């Protein structure tokens, strides 16, 4: 991969302006899903990956495709199936004949080698294949035949999950779910949105997406914006707040909770949660809050920022027990309850 082009260091205002422009370009194609788009972009600039859960036909693939177009970044799509092999994702060594007639093994990069990757219905692939993708997500590299290949930044994976037709699927284990910064839910559009979708997709002209960046400097611009996010100041108090939230998602009766002394106790967590959020949840809270702070024109994060990203950052990291399923309790309910408890304890 080529080195990043030198770009001007963006300001807080640049970040917000760029973010809003990308958002606007996406919404030329995607009708509705405003919050999902914002969370997806936030995850991108925070340097994470997104798991998108939605029923078929809600625009998951279109969303990712539009994002690649708007940012002028390379985009690939993998349709996960049961028979998909890791080499189909990462790439493999193939024998190629050179011009002088010699034959040699040459690494043929797989679809993971791009900037934006859509893993469609990731839960339909076998765990082995899933883990191949997850290695690329976590370490920005793939190892094929003992050779490690770096992925070019920015690297952003959006995996989709189909909550229906669960037969013959391989639900992502919690360890792999934890690698995703946010989990975004796409719901069915309402009547007005549906009408607009019909109008925009069944007419003679399709909406055109204008790239926000030039192709040659797009990766560098995105990386500069990601660095700006990291520079946002998080006061120790905010970090403690995030830590309290994450600790509050962990049930007291868990044998993996070493220290029972905590500031917030919630009965709902003890009753319905099998495993709470991992430390990655706290990282996701702070990184997501930093993006929110920049969007608000601030160089510091506030509690409101953390609260706003708590559900997409934590819901998929909380493992509920059977009692929760039987009582119809969702992880979103648990996170909302935890936020309430932490706020009350702070007051």
């Amino acid at each position, binding site marked *: 991969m080529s080195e990043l082009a030198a770009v001007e260091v963006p300001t*807080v205002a640049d970040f917000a302006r760029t973010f809003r422009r990308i958002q606007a370009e996406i919404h030329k194609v995607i009708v509705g899903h405003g919050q999902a788009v914002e969370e997806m972009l936030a995850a991108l600039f925070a340097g994470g990956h997104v798991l998108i859960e939605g029923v078929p036909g809600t625009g998951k693939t279109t969303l990712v495709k539009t994002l690649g177009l708007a940012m002028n970044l390379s985009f690939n799509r993998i349709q996960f199936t049961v028979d998909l092999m890791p080499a189909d994702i990462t790439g493999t060594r193939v024998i190629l004949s050179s011009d002088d007639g010699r034959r040699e093994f040459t690494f043929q990069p797989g679809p993971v080698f791009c900037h934006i990757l859509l893993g469609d219905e990731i839960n339909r692939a076998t765990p082995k294949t899933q883990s191949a993708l997850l290695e690329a997500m976590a370490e920005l590299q793939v190892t094929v035949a003992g050779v490690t290949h770096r992925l070019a930044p920015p690297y952003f994976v959006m995996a989709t999950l189909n909550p229906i037709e669960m037969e013959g699927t391989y639900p992502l284990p919690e360890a792999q779910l934890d690698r995703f910064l946010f989990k975004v839910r796409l719901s069915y559009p309402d009547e007005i949105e549906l009408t607009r979708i019909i109008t925009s997709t069944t007419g003679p002209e399709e909406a055109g997406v204008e790239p926000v960046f030039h192709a040659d400097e797009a990766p560098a611009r995105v990386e500069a914006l990601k660095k700006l996010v990291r*520079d*946002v*100041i998080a006061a*120790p108090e905010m970090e403690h707040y995030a830590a309290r939230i994450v600790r509050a998602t962990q049930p007291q009766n868990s044998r993996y909770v070493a220290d029972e002394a905590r500031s917030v106790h919630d009965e709902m967590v003890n009753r319905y949660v099998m495993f709470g959020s991992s430390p990655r949840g706290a990282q996701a809270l702070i990184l997501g809050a930093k993006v929110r*702070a920049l969007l608000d024109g*601030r*160089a*510091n994060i506030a509690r*409101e920022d953390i609260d706003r990203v708590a559900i997409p950052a934590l819901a998929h990291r909380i493992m509920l027990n059977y009692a929760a399923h039987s009582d119809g309790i969702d992880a979103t309910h648990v996170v909302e309850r935890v936020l309430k408890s932490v706020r009350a304890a702070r007051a």
Partner: protein
Amino acid sequence: MSLRPLGLHTIVDFYATEARMRPSENLRPRDEKLWQILGQVGRLRSRLNSLAFQHAFFYAAAALIVAGALIYISAFMLTPINFIVVTVTLSILAAFAIVAALRQGWLMRSNARRAATLADERADLKGRLATIVTIAEHRKKGPMWSYLVEDTLGRRAEFAPSRIEKRRISRAIYAFVASLIVAGLVWPLSRIRHAIPMPASQGQDDLTLDLNDLHLRPAGPGDDNAMTVQADPETMRRLEDKLAREGVEPGQGSSTSFGKLMDQARNMANNLQDKLTGQTQNHRRLNLKLADATDPMSGPGNHNPLDAANHKRRDAAGQFQRDQTNDNSGPLPRGSLRDNSSDEPEQAAGRSDLANQQPGANDPNAATKPLDDQGDQQNGDQGSSGGAAHGIGVDPDSLFGAPTQSKLGNEGFEIAIEARPMEHGAKGAGHAYEPPKVRTPLAAVQEPDEPVVRTEVPPDDRTTIKRVFER
């Protein structure tokens, strides 16, 4: 540069500005901006701490004043035991209130971080100030620190102390003012209580009763014991017999620890009430003279005058006994009844019944008049000149006041008797007598205490009464 008079505020502002600016002399411009922000947060902190202090002070002072006022007024209105109970209760409540107020004030105090957080919330600064105050202590501030400082300084007007906390005076001052009003109301109320006429005179300390009319019982805990029984030896012997018959053992009343405790409490309450009301209590003993109607030595004349007035006299004595604790008089008035406590025993022996010495003692109607007048005198106040509050032994011209308008309440009547051995009997008898402490409840024929209703003195009787007093 604007000119303004050189007042205290100007001087204080000057030195405050100097103090604020001094550390920033060697600082870079970015740090100067930081100091400006921190200085503003510091002023906000000072204002918040001032309010916290005021909160603690005003509420504590209010609790103290209200409790003191209530204790003061209860000293006038309550009996000693009730007074001590109320005082202890109010003291405990006041102590709790003061501690709570001080604790709340302590919790309300602010440090810089807390003041910044409050400013963030009230000015919707989204944690800018709190972050600056927190991060300012760190050496490594990050590349966006300057942006944060600039951004926050640009919003300086939003977190001005006067905007974040408008009040300079805590709302607790309302409680303080209310407590002062309560205290202000207590003072005239206590004066009113001072002016309420007492139904019995403080001047009387002799009471003559028929031995046959005495119903004896042991004194209870906390009963007043300021009474001395005097009688001739024969009557005292009869009293002993009567006590023996009725099974009253001497001194059994306060022999228990509870009784002693109650006595101590009563004494303490009395002393405290005296101090609060400014009255000096005169713990003179009441001399109860016993007359034996069946005694041929006494004769029918000794008893007859009492028959008609016995009922009222006992009521008056019962009230009088209570009023002894509030006695504010100086020299004792000497009316128709004489004080035996300062007389020689020989003289006391000669006046077993003063009714004999009154003109017209054998006339029941005549005998009741001095007693009624005496009741009138008992109702008087030493400071007033006539009417319901007229005094005893003052100018006879001002003896007759307006009739009593208000009907006083009914009260139970008891006489607690603590008899002590005296050196000499009423007639100089040498044997020491140790009478028991008894209490006499109302007899079946007696009625509860009905204060004497003052009526207009008939013009014909006025001359007679005046003559008695002039004498």
